[in-house]
């Protein structure tokens, strides 16, 4: 029995040694997020426009109804999102929009520091999402 206790405490004490802690000194130290982390959205650009073709699948699938899309026709006769907006205050970061996108035009980045001061700042327009 004592050996088992000693073994357990050994693990506990090992974590107290320097270099074994999982806690980091945020915000001076930041963790690298996993590749599948669901943070702020990003619209993928192509050379001259956004990749998005305004198919309306993301606002349709969105359970929080936080995506606004309005399609239009550009000079080349292509369909593009004249308006693309995500209301981050409503977003639940489920990632369904990314999953639904048929052209991989939307992805989720590792940005998680999304606090802000004004309500309007949480409205991510197409221009902001393309950055």
């Amino acid at each position, binding site marked *: 029995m004592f050996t088992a206790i000693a073994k357990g405490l050994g693990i506990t004490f090992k974590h107290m040694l320097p270099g074994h802690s999982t806690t980091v000194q945020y915000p001076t130290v930041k963790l690298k997020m996993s590749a599948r982390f669901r943070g702020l959205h990003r619209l993928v650009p192509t050379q001259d426009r956004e990749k998005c073709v305004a198919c309306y699948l993301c606002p349709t699938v969105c359970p929080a109804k936080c995506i606004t899309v309005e*399609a239009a026709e550009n000079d080349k006769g*292509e369909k593009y999102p004249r308006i693309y907006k995500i209301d981050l205050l409503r977003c639940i970061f489920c990632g369904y929009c990314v999953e639904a996108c048929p052209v991989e035009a939307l992805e989720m980045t590792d940005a998680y520091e999304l606090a802000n001061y004004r309500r309007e700042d949480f409205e991510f327009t197409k221009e902001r999402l393309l950055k």
Partner: protein
Amino acid sequence: MVNLTIDGKQITVSRTATIYEAALEAGINIPVLCYAKKLLPFGACRICLVQVEQMKGRLIPSCTTPVSEGMVVTTMSDEILKVRKTVLEFLLVNHVIECPVCDKGGECDLQELTYAHEVVTNRFQGEKFNLETDEVNPLIERNMNRCVLCGRCVRVCDEVVGYGSYSFINRGFETKIATAFDRGLNCEFCGQCVSMCPVGAILPRPFKFKARPWQLKEVDTVCGYCGNGCTVSLGVLDKKIETIRFNDKIGVNDGNLCIRGRFGYSYVNSEERLTTPLVRKNGQLVEASWDEALQVVADGFKQAQASLGILSGARLTNEELFLLKNLAKVAGTANLDHSGGECYKGVTEGLAGSLGIAASTGTFPQVEECEAILAIRSDFYETHPVFGMVVNQAVKRNEAQLWLVADKRGKFAKLPGAQNLLHRPGMELDVLNGLARVLLDEGLAQTEGVEGLAELKQALAEFGADQVATRTGVDAETLRVAARQLAAAKKSAILLAYGLPYTAYSRELGIAAANLAILVGIPGRAGSGLYLCGEKANSQGAIDLGIVPQTGGLGAQAMLDAAANGKLNALYVVGEDLLISYPDRGKVEKALEKVPFLVVQDIFLSSTAAKAHVVLPAASFAEKDGTFTNAERRIQRVRPGIPLPGQAKTDGTIIAALIEKLSGNLAFTGPAAIFAEIGRSVPAYATVSFNGIGPQGFVWGGEILTPSRRRLQPVGGAVPVEGTFQLLTGSALYHSGTVSTRAKGPQAVVAEAYVEFGREDAKALQLKDGDLVKVTGNGVELRLKAKVDNRLPKGVLFAPYHFAAAGINRLYKGEAAVSVTVSK
């Protein structure tokens, strides 16, 4: 009837059914792509393959194979599924996968089948086409890269519309659907092909990238244009009508629509809609509150008393018309009329005198089964295109013999076997009398129980076939043959449209048509009908409700005459632009100027409204709740799809508010209660309740309306119009009334007035399309753009009446045809 077994289910169906239809009846769904209910079986896609016990060894296309006794059908097995999947793979070899940008995505038959059959990979590889899209026209976009060659557009254009824009060209992999010489679409733009296309190959351009099908709210209502009463399903997104959706489930039109119904909705969303009441102060129309405007109107009406004239449009609902009639009563005036002017007298006086009824005797679908059809005026297709499509099908599918009494070679004249009794302008009456005379002379007439035979015989003394032939230019022998065929047919139909541009001889034509119908035996006979079709959505409702001059009251023309002579104290115009649509603009102008108090209730600041003392903003058909009665007596529900713009109110609410101001009594109790109230004064409307009106509407008087009498009324002939050139006015296919000139769709195709010449005249006058010509007649000179076509015989010109700027009604004063001179 035939008995067969489908998937172990015993069923009995009609002998003419196909396996697909039988299965559908049994509640078994077989997937299809090229099948459409209203088209003939074609068998292009091979998705609907089934196994038939008696035809072992191969799979049978269920949509083209008729049922037979004892058939044992299996609709689903591993083998069938494998074949269907393969068929889809074949289709997807060349079909471009651009669902994200294709407007059909979400309601695409191919997409749904591919999803249902889990076709995720393709064993075959082939070239995707990169054909150019057809965008030469403003309304219909064709992207042949998405085409699956089901042929539905080809067939609907040929079988139903009778235009034949499309055909398959090339062979094998290169096969595609093309227009003549692959030049792009240039047709009547009814958009039937758009509604039929199972994929995104043919799409409505005004709706391009506007919304996804699942975002749209669908509101089933009745089209607000002509008297055909087609069901339109408004596709509403965010309080705006974005498109008209295909709907063949309800209504009388089987999903068929014309350019006006399908593309003419945009006026409802127009920025120019009236949103506040306007009252004239110091000569200027200024915005006012409802209270103020209604008080001014009520005071004006009180002052005018019996010298108030009320002229209503025929696009108000039955409930609103009923309230209007009450308003007339409350205001103490007998001067009430609906906007048909005097042109519906053929129905209210002619038909009522002959048959004791003031409505068409049959219903539209019956015409499809008719053996002989007589269409008076080739313009019938122009005024009622969707009823025209029923005639097309009768002729093309059931080989009905079509006779035309027409002054032009219109679209009907091009139908197979159609015989055109082409007459000089304005002489329809003589031709009809001639036909009646032949029937009497040759003893073919049904005279049992018919009154007034002797008088008619006497009146027809001058109308022997040869005499009529010399007067009208119709071949005497053809006239005789027409009469004989009409008499021989067991099921026949006589069609006549009436409307504002067809004022001349309206009463006489109604009588002549009724005489002919009686002699042929049409009224009351199963499958036959005499159709007198009103121009506007609720013309029949206005007649049923008695929106006609009350005892001692003035009719529309008499009111205008009185106003022009300063004898009318006030005029209340509801939903009609008199200045543009009425014959004789000079007189209307004078009347509107002289009348001391003019109130106009409309959705736009029309030229009539601009002259008013008070303008009240009203609602379009898409914002109203109520009922319309179409030209075959079908009462159908009109439902509001979008909210009213600004402070505008429905006509019903406005009229009720006026009644309240005048009498102090509450008048508006909701459409259902008012409809019930209508039943109390119009017995035919008492047979159904507001909520009892089903998806197919309710035809008052039944499928065949039995006439209360058969009286032949003597009627004379028309006075021939002299002169080298004779100008006809009428309705153009792309427009209806004046409101369609504010809709983008019809305007995109026909944007301005024109005067149409036949090729012969154009050659003689050295005219080309688009040349400006001077047309002088009745002391008025008009400058119009020329349009050259092969519809018109020598010496006949045609100008549509819809356009404000052209001023056709300066020249046209209600004659059958105007003698004019033409110079460059």
